[in-house]
């Protein structure tokens, strides 16, 4: 099962890389989700139509798999399911969402913008940001799961 999930992960990663390449080749833009989505919501001007189309595309990818009954997902509890249910409670998700929004807003990117596109550009800022958010997230999971005994 480990090999299978790794293969599916790599295949999904290649699709994400092709998406980033397509956006750069057609519109000359970095495929950073936090920048595209927050720009769509909070900026005026000519970038709105393609940003909206991009976000609709992201939602319709998994949506099409679900509608057509294609069990190509890689959900750990039910490999084949497309979307996994979050384990954390509402209060924890509110705190986490706020931190992710603030952090990616102030830090100008998230896993897609810094971790994929920025690292592929060999940008020092993106490589440093990616190192910091992965290590801090690992420390957070360690503290919350193994030190404080929480489920998430």
């Amino acid at each position, binding site marked *: 099962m480990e090999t299978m999930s790794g293969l599916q992960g790599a295949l999904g990663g290649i699709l994400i890389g092709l998406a980033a390449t397509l956006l750069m080749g057609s519109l000359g833009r970095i495929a950073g989700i936090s920048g595209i989505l927050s720009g769509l919501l909070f900026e005026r001007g000519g970038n709105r139509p393609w940003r909206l189309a991009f976000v609709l595309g992201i939602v319709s990818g998994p949506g099409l798999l679900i509608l057509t009954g294609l069990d190509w997902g890689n959900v750990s509890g039910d490999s084949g399911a497309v979307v996994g249910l979050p384990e954390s409670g509402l209060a924890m998700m509110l705190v986490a969402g706020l931190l992710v929004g603030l952090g*990616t807003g102030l830090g100008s990117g998230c*896993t897609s913008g810094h971790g994929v596109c920025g690292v592929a550009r060999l940008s020092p800022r993106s490589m440093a940001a990616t190192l910091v958010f992965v290590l801090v997230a690992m420390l957070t999971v360690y503290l919350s799961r193994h030190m404080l005994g929480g489920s998430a």
Partner: protein
Amino acid sequence: MKILAGYLAGLLFGLGLAISGMTDPARVIGFLDVAGAWDSTLIFVLGGAVVTTFIGYRLVWRRQMPLFESRFQLPTRRDLDTRLLGGAALFGIGWGLSGYCPGPAVASLPEPSWPLAAFIMALLLGWWLARRLSPTH
């Protein structure tokens, strides 16, 4: 054509997130949980995405300009500052607590749940606050 290109890129991105399993917060937390039953899947996702993007970018940059715009828009800053690293640290805490980064959260919308809705509402509030705090916007 710009709208079609944006949609197709988003579609590929969303398919990639779903097929790789990134729309499962448990799998993401399994990767972050290095002291537990470690799940290596995310290494393959990031590796596949970075290598493909690295090659793809260098191929498309051979052209003078993108197909439907007059220039490539790339960030030019190379310096590290507190805002970047502090923001990355805050994001890391939120990512570790929830198992969601923005892309997978949005891609999970076809199967909504209350915790996901709470995350996305707070995410939007966070982006709004970050823009209020940012001198460039």
